[in-house]
Every structure is written in structure tokens, then in C-alpha cells.
């Protein structure tokens, strides 16, 4: 992620010059390969632009490992609801589906 015009330009140039390491490109952000070379490029960008470059590592999300069945089931049930206008909190009230604020307070 970039936070200045110069860093954003630097990222754009990086993506153009090293197309093979770029998984996805967004406006001022990019998702790079999980390789040491991609990390090296990200570090170079941060050396050039300091705090205007944020480097984070992403992880694939496995809903079968990360959350319990109730959360997956609630998502499926809500997507399948009859009344499209019902917000999830109302949908979950009085059922076994997890409460949204309780989920908010729990770290993944």
C-alpha cells in the first residue's frame, strides 16, 4: 500500500517492470507473489519512500479452519433469506445464528 504520489508512482513502475511478481494491482496497492524476490522489491520500494509504503503479508482464508460451523451456516442462511431487506442483526435475533456484535468482539 502506498501513501504518497511518489510512492504510488514507484509502485506503478515496479508493477510494470516486474509484471511476473504481481498477482493483482489496485490503485495505490498491489498484491505480490509470495517469493523472496517480491519481498525484496517491496523492501526496495520502502527504502525509497519510507513510511509512505506499507508492507503487509496476506494469508489465504480458510473458513473451515478459521471459524466454527455456526458462522459459515449463518452466512449461508442469511444469503438465502426470504426477506431481502432484513438486516443481519434482525435476522439473527431469536435464532441460533451468532450475534453480530459478539462476532465483532472476537478476534479471528
Amino acid at each position: 500500500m502506498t501513501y504518497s504520489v511518489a510512492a504510488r508512482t514507484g509502485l506503478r513502475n515496479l508493477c510494470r517492470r516486474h509484471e511476473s511478481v504481481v498477482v493483482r494491482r489496485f490503485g495505490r496497492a498491489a498484491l505480490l507473489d509470495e517469493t523472496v524476490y517480491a519481498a525484496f522489491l517491496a523492501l526496495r520500494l520502502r527504502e525509497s519512500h519510507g513510511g509512505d509504503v506499507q508492507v503487509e503479508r496476506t494469508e489465504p482464508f480458510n473458513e473451515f479452519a478459521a471459524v466454527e460451523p455456526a458462522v459459515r451456516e449463518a452466512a449461508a442462511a442469511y444469503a438465502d433469506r426470504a426477506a431481502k431487506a432484513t438486516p443481519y442483526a434482525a435476522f439473527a435475533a431469536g435464532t441460533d445464528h451468532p450475534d453480530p456484535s459478539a462476532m465483532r468482539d472476537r478476534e479471528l
Partner: protein
Amino acid sequence: MTDPGAVLGSVPTDASLGRELAAAARSRGRSSSVADEIAAIEAEIDAIEVEPVETAAARRRVAAASDETARLKERVAALRGDAQARRELGAEADATLDALEAAAAELSAAQTERIAAEEALERATAEARRARDERRRRLRLRDRLRNRRRDARRELASAMYPAFRSALDAVPGGSPADAGREPAAYDGPSAPASLAAVRIAAVEGPVSLAGAAAGLVAGAETAATALLRVDAVRLRGAADVDAGR
């Protein structure tokens, strides 16, 4: 805002026709309808203070603590295996058990350090996130500023366009027929366009001309100062173009 003289004081200019005309408009004291908004955005940007947040030290500490924990876990496991093997063989195990106890204590301390390091990193990361929110706000403002400045240039250039079109008739090499309806539609050579922009501007100080613009003015019958409506004109040969700029 760019000083008009900086744009139009030397031809060829480094600027597009739109920028030249906007500079001409500003030299005449015109300002755009978004001038106040531009000033407000600039003030807002100036007021943003982004403290550099150092998180590398915290990351390094976590990495070191993790390495140390892993190393000690291995050592404890090895000593435990060793102690058990000795016991099964009926061999002396006291020294190994002492070492095991020491390593376990070290591991416990390392784990405590690791937790502390992770907490410190979490705090540093949260602080960095807040600082990034400010950076992000600043970047958005800068983008908005750039768009507003472009709007202002377009507006000013459009306002000057009728005068520019007439001026093309007065400068050598220029033709109002090339002008079209708006700056983007200009379809003629750039040297007479720059001369016309200078002519409709109020440029302070001498204007220096080089290259095609200098040739056009030198070949004209009217005096250069009258053509460009400036106090002084310096013509530079192609040879000293680089030296003079």
C-alpha cells in the same frame, strides 16, 4: 500556483498551451472560481503532520524472540530425550536434568519476552496505522488539489481563449484558423502559440526567445517588444539555448 513569469518568461516554454494561457490569465490578475477551494485544500494539507512511526525495531525484537524460543524448545526437547535415555539405561542423569531445568527456565523467560515483544509490536502497529490514516488523508487531498488546479487551469485558459485567438493573428507564424474552440483543439505550431500567449499576458521582466520563436520574431517587420507587448525581448541563437536556460 506557478509564477506567470516562470512559465512565459522564456520561449519555448516547458508548458502546454493550457498552462501558458492559465499563466497569462494569472498575470492579468484573473483567478479561477476554485481559487478559494484550492487555498483551503492547501491549508489543510499544510496542517497535516505525519510523524514517522518506527516499527522496524519492534519487528526485529519479535523475530529475535521467536528464534530464541524455537531454539530453546529444541534444546529442552533434546535434553528431555537425553535424560530419558540415560534413565532407561540406568546411567547417571543428574547433570542432564540440571541442564534441562536450566534450559526450561530459559525457555520460560524467552516465551515471556516473546509475548512482551509481540505486544510492543501490536502497539507500534496501531500507532503506525493511525499515522497512515493521516498519510492517506493527505494523499487524497493532494489528488484533489491536483484535480482542482487542473480545473482552474482549464477555466482560466478557456477565459483567455478569444484573446489568444485574436493574438494569433498578430504574431508571426500564427493563424486564428488553427485555434479551434478551446485550448485542446489548437492545431497549429507551438512557437506562434507561445508568442500569442506572451502577447496577451502581462509579463514582468524581459522575455527571452530561442529556436523557432526567436526566428519568427527576428524575421518580422514589427519590433519584437510591440509584437509581444513586453518591455524587453532577448533573442538567443540556437547555440546558447542550453547555456541560457
